């Protein structure tokens, strides 16, 4: 690390290179995972956290190879269970910054239970879900986010499984941070990774990621350059939900249903447009936004929700210090001699 400069507080200033490992990256050429890896490695030095205090934990799947490529501490665990391992790491040492890298099969199918419970406990974990709507590592079966009717290896006549919406699940599980980004927009992705890193509590970032081998182009109907301004919408805190090439279309709430309206038509003004509030205590509004899908609606990108709540590991540490205050630091001698005792002479 000698090549690094120093920051003002004396800590070593790291670079993107410091976070790369000597392991050959083994994703397919053209995979969206490369973009995510690059952005995470780019953001890491900006966080000012020494790399020994960072841990990447993953489950099983293409995405879950991620920790091998990050020169931090890392743990490639078992299918679907990464949030559980990560919880143990974070609770054992709250000073560590703990990331969970997962995929749509890993987090939402085999690991659905752990995903829910890590979020509801508000353990300070940064969870990034690479959603490519397919099982890549097992070569092309449908995943829990695959669209209904999609034809693939395990559903040659089309899937008859209704897909799950990862954001709906995250809101239901009381996630305190929920965001969405995509592999093809590195700038936005880097911004979202940074927001996630800065959140205290269970944070969840869904990243639309293209699998160019088994599910190529699954998001292109709305995220290609020519159409994305009309088919996607950027969420910005305290700003009206406006989209479109001409910035003249917006979302207006009609009861609990979002309507697409055009500013300047039928007397609609900017004041009629729904204003985004990522800090709303109740997740009702972000839930409505999270369910907007193409082609009915523009697909929202950005931070849906970011609220503060005490974290699990902090409350546990609080109970431990309260117990020490009340009873004194544990004495083994006292413990084994507690209860009703008697002496045999």
């Amino acid at each position: 690390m000698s090549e690094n400069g120093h920051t003002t507080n004396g800590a070593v200033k790291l670079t993107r290179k410091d976070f790369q490992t000597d392991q050959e990256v083994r994703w397919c050429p053209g995979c969206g995972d490369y973009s995510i890896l690059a952005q995470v490695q780019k953001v890491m030095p900006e966080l000012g956290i020494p790399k020994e205090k960072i841990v990447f934990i993953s489950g099983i799947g293409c995405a879950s190879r991620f920790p091998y490529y990050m020169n931090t501490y890392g743990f490639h665990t078992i299918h679907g269970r990464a949030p559980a391992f990560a919880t143990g790491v974070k609770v054992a040492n709250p000073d560590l910054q703990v990331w969970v890298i997962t995929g749509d099969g890993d987090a939402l199918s085999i690991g659905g239970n752990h995903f829910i419970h890590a979020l509801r406990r508000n353990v300070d974990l940064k969870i990034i879900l690479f959603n490519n709507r397919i099982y890549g590592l097992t070569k092309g079966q449908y995943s829990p986010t695959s669209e209904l009717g999609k034809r693939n290896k395990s559903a040659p006549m089309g899937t008859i499984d209704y897909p799950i919406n990862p954001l709906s699940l995250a809101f239901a599980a009381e996630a305190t941070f929920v965001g969405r980004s995509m592999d093809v927009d590195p700038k936005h992705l880097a911004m979202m990774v940074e927001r996630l890193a800065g959140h205290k509590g269970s944070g969840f970032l869904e990243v639309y990621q293209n699998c160019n081998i088994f599910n190529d182009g699954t998001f292109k109907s709305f995220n290609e350059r020519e159409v994305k301004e009309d088919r996607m919408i950027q969420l910005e805190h305290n700003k009206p939900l406006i989209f479109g090439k001409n910035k003249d279309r917006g979302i207006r709430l009609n009861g609990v249903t979002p309507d697409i309206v055009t500013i300047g038509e039928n007397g609609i003004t900017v004041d009629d447009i729904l204003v985004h509030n990522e800090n709303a205590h109740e997740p009702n509004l972000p839930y409505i936004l999270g369910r907007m899908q193409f082609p009915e609606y523009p697909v929202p990108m950005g931070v849906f929700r970011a609220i503060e709540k005490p974290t699990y590991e902090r409350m546990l540490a609080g109970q431990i210090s309260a117990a020490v205050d009340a009873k004194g630091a544990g004495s083994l001698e006292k413990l084994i001699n507690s209860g009703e005792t008697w002496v045999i002479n």
Partner: protein
Amino acid sequence: MSATTLEEPITNTKLPIEVLEAVTIRFAGDSGDGMQVTGGQFTSTSAIIGNDISTLPDFPAEIRAPAGSLPGVSGYQLNFSSRDIRTPGDEPQVLVAMNPAALKVNIKELEPGGILVLNTDEFNDGNLKKAGYAANPLNDGSLSGYRVFQIPITSLTLKALENSSLPFKQQERCKNFYALGLMYWLYDRPMEPTLKWIEDKFGAKPEVAEANTMALRAGYNYADTMELFTTHYHVGKAQIKPGKYRNITGNEATAIGFIAASQLAGRPIFYGSYPITPASDILHELSKHKNFGVKTFQAEDEIAAIGAAIGAAFAGHIGLTGTSGPGVALKSEAIGLAVMTELPLIVIDVQRGGPSTGLPTKTEQADLLQAMFGRNSDSPVGIVAPATPADCFKMAVEAVRLATKYMAPVFFLSDGYLGNGSEPWEIPSLDSLPEMKVHFRTEVEGFFPYLRDEKTLARPWAVPGTPGLEHRIGGLEKQNITGNVNYEPDNHDFMVRLRAEKIHRMQQDIPPLAVFGKPEGKVLVLGWGSTYGAITTAVEQMQEQGHAVSSAHLRHLNPFPSNLGEVLKSFETVIVPELNLGQLCMLIRARFLVDAVSLSQVKGKPFKVSTLVNKIKEYL
């Protein structure tokens, strides 16, 4: 609480006192009748006045089966003695049955001519019908082979509490203390320890404390003044090794043992668990001791419980997960990961009857092969097994010592009988506990995640947060030393053998197997786990009769002690009693080519001494 030494009571009675060596009592009633409390109190008092004791709580899986029904019967058996005892007794000599269902379920085990105390108030038509009695056993002559004492315990309790302000239902609930009072008189026990317990327990509700106190005293005085019993009995102090004692259940000893291990290792405990009978008491106990830095995590399921424990172990805690057999089944894949990543992890299995949900509240020892082999591929782990409730303390320390020294998962195989059963525990001096401070690698120079200690083959424990030691581990096959992912055929062959060798090397760190009795002879009874008490009692009886019978008890099941083969070959016959269909016996036969004989029983109950004695006799 300070140590108490109580004088044995001298009851003002005109009745003769008969001195007995040992008595086995079973209290039985509805699961809401408080039989576990009654049995527990009789046990504590007996221990405090110097008897040796051994207990067997036996309760239904249903929390509140319909009142008066057969499935709702809850029992508590205890054996108290003036000599050294190791089992809760085969057949009770005394049965206290609080209703017809309790009588029906337990009468077949009462010794012929035994004392039968019945709460006649509950022998009404409704209860008799629920228990499946066509005729009232109180007057159909079916109990003529026993010494029956018919006592209207419920109405006597209510009468004693005439002036209590408690609602009727709550007054009625005091009848277990009335029954306890009767038994205290009959067996010449002091009431003080229980009076004190009531005060501590119900101090915040003085009217409840008072009612229970009155019921206890009323029961005692009733027996004393009514000359109900023709005699009463005295069981003297046992010759117990001098020392300071407390009564302890296996699950308590397990929890305290792991806290001790954490203190000795100098690292906090992380206990990940999902509630399951009969292991939940370990979670309850550990969660009380947060002032030791204990972190308990009630997970969303068994897999998360072990996952979090492994994560905590990676981060430098003593990672524990506790469950019973069905939970171990769910944890198997994660145990394999701990094998592959070579992290210290302790898996506590408080075994119960199976397969599947099986008999949740009953004991069995049928998870040995699951612990040994129950994972994909060759994935060896260490296995230790406590022999008695108090031994859980020692073996908990042992499990942590081996897991941290060898950087490997270790199973702790307890069972329902050990977990819920209790015995006096001689409180150890802290100096007698092993030195086992753990060391984390911090030196950057020459570090690799899979470097090996020459003697133990352990890899370094390099925890996140340590500068310069950043590394990645995972479930994919590793190259030795570098820890890099490696799929080469020779490397895999090497690593599979290395992981096995590492567990095998624990042998250099475990004590040789001790033989109880002569080191050679006709019969060796080889046991493991909770059968220790019954086996030792049976073998001792045979030895007293001059037979060439010895026993040996395995506390380390993987690896076995290094002298096991030699011990086995010194006897003509090896009998292996187990509460399964012969799992240890199969291992012994396979490993040592010894024609060992299996004695198996799977009734959800411990062995009776007589069952063992009869089997041994066949080979003399």
